[in-house]
């Protein structure tokens, strides 16, 4: 494993015993009055008369920006959860989920964590971003009251932060909830990322390890789409479903409304995917033709189709234009061979969690 490019977790002795989110400030005079969060001022020297908590910590100072949001665990650990200089910010709002996907990168835990929603809402309002913030879980829509309340708080602060919510879509099978969700959520730009792993319940329910999931997600996709909630459809090819990849996308684009884009995501070797890796992961070379067929559907339906988390040398050259350099700057890695690769600057590399990296660097022909 290689080192990550940007550390996001720090130990700060002075914060021992403090919980929850804080907003990190770098200069005194620019404190946002409206921000509902406690503040932490990082200074060259401590000024004892300050009304807000002030510390001196060069390391934290180096890796944070004015306005970033940190989450304290009560034991002096601060994790930077929203960072102005990151290329993607995501907040976890619950660890609970009604699916148990075999490749879940964030395996769910059945704990009472509703406070996370409050943390997230406060953090978003304080951060005040115009860039998209990701909301993930667990299943963010599992507790319908909590998610509606979350939007209510954001709306009360007149917050307009665009959000991308990663959901299994099952909650939308409830048409009343879908309507309420739309009312609450569409006061800002949102997009819901909903994965669909098969055109039938057999394979989908197997992969998400939950009976009845496919039926719920299908109804959810229909309802959400009909209500005009923008949907990013996600598919992860595995040994179980790679041969129906294009059929899944074709069915989705034929049947659902409001699909804004389709993302094909290569499996990430974290969480449960680690223990199920052998059963699930299939080298892309074995399904190049399905990838190709799928990408072609973009023209036909006028919807953007992208490939995420694919090192370029794992896919055919014709598909480079669909590949997104997606892995966050601080989560990706390249094996040493890549140094000689002529397309490295376009390549997203690997998740740093990966065990074996097979590469075929593209060289100049000598």
């Amino acid at each position, binding site marked *: 494993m290689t080192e990550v490019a940007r550390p996001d977790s720090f130990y700060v002795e002075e914060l021992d015993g403090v919980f929850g989110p804080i907003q990190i400030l770098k200069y005194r005079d620019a404190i946002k009055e409206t921000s509902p969060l406690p503040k932490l001022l990082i200074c060259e020297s401590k000024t004892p008369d300050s009304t807000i908590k002030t510390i001196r910590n060069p390391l934290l100072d180096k890796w944070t920006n004015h306005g970033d949001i940190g989450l304290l665990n009560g034991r002096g650990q601060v994790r930077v959860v929203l960072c102005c200089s990151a290329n993607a910010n995501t907040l976890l709002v619950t660890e609970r989920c009604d699916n148990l996907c075999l490749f879940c990168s964030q395996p769910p835990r059945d704990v009472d964590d509703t406070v996370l929603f409050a943390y997230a809402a406060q953090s978003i309002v304080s951060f005040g971003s115009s860039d998209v913030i990701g909301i993930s879980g667990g299943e963010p829509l599992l507790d319908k009251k909590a998610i509606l309340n979350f939007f209510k708080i954001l709306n009360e602060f007149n917050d307009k932060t665009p959000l991308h919510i990663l959901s299994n879509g099952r909650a939308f099978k409830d048409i009343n909830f879908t309507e309420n969700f739309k009312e609450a959520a569409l006061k800002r730009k949102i997009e819901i990322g909903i994965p669909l792993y098969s055109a*039938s319940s057999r394979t989908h329910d197997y992969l998400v390890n939950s009976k009845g999931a496919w*039926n719920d997600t299908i109804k959810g996709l229909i309802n959400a789409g009909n209500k005009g909630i923008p949907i990013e459809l996600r598919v992860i090819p595995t040994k179980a479903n790679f041969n129906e990849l294009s059929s899944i996308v074709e069915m989705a684009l034929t049947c659902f409304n409001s699909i804004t884009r389709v993302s094909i995501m290569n499996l990430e070797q974290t969480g449960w995917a680690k223990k199920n890796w052998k059963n699930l992961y299939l080298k892309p070379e074995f399904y190049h033709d399905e990838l190709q067929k799928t990408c072609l559907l973009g023209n036909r339906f006028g919807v953007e189709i992208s490939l995420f988390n694919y090192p370029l040398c794992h896919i055919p050259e014709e598909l480079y234009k669909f590949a997104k350099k997606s892995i966050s700057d601080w989560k990706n890695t390249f094996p040493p061979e890549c140094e000689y690769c002529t397309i490295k600057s376009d390549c997203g590399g690997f998740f740093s969690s990966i065990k074996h990296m097979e590469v075929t660097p593209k060289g100049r022909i000598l």
Partner: protein
Amino acid sequence: MTNYKSLPIKFRELKDGRTVISNLANTYHVLDNIQSLRDAFELGQCTDKNLLNELEQKLFITSDADFESKVHLTTSAFSKRINKDLTSPRLIMIVPTLRCDHHCSYCQVSRVNADLSGFDLQSSQIPSLINYITKIEKPPYKIEFQGGEPLLAFDFIQTFYEQFEIEVGKENFNIVIATSLSLIDESIINWCRGKNVGFSTSIDAGKKAHNKHRKLITKDSFELVQKNINWIHHELGREKIGTVTTVTRDGLEGYDELVDTHLALGLIGMFVRPVSSYGFAEEKQAKDISIIDFMVFYKKLISRILNENLSGTPLIEHFLLIHYKRLLNSPSAAYIDLMAPAGYLKNSILIDYTGNVFGSDEARMVYRKYGADELIIGHINNTELNLEHSTQLLAHSFNFDVPGCSDCVYQGSCGSDPIYHLQDFGEPIGDKSYSRFCELHKSIFDFIFELIRDQKYKNVLDGWLND
């Protein structure tokens, strides 16, 4: 999956024995023969795993457990498709004059000589015209000037453009002038420079046919149109001119020449369809070509075009492409003559030189032949709308519930044309077994399934989807 239920399907045996099936979601599959249709759907004893998987993914069969969701998926796709035809934009056609310098033998609108008076929209009516347009439609506006020969009323077009630009803003409209181009001159070209104005012109299949049909006093319509297309290319840009080809009896041998002409002019698109006249039966018989004859021509034409593409020369035939897109449920396949409910009124409107408003170009022709007043839906000088008859026509133009179409395999891709059927059958639905509309589109859809059997041709058609 050995135990499965079938969902409702429609089917059609192609000439080569293969059988096309489709459903309400408008997905298609081609089975090897009628026996495999029986095996899979009538006897329920298909054992080909790959085929069953594919049929399941395309919503033709389902497991018991998924039945309800598959029905939901089907109905969702069905409504999505109808919604697409309900919400596509409207083309606004304006006939500034009925006068024309050509005497086309198949002219549909009984043009009048270029020097007659009383056949023009007056410039003084432009404010009411603009007022009317902005009331019935929202931006961006797609406007087409038709004739007669609109260039005989170029002053009118100029004034309209200037006033319309002030009213709605330059970025909110686009104008196409449908013209023979014979009257285009330097001042017109200069005026068009930098404006949202393009041209659409007719090129018939072959010089002989072109000049025969498009009689100009000087008899050189064909040479003139070529010269003028080049001129527009050069001065205004390639994207400013499109062509339409109407195939008549005299053009039936002209497929190669038609392609050559387009290629020589550097055109990368063409649009080819058979003549179809709006007139009395005897007249029609004399003029129309049979769909069978047209298809013989068309297949040779398309085969030439596809081979040009395969050898690296890009050329798109849009009539075929529209049908292909309809089969694929592409969102951009909204073609006025091929949608259900019909494009009539909903997606097109025509304002003629008297200020009368019609639901389509064809409605104006039928009106001129029969004096069918109920086809006039209004007038630009007042806000009264006479929609009773037209909404009846539209209400009859869903095709899933009409005889013939209801069990037709192409129903989800096809359209309906109440005005054509009204004039041929006296009512908007007609008898599809005698309908030219039906015969034409069915033949084209059949032809596409013939074509895409060959992967290399399918690749060409898929490549056209980029545009």
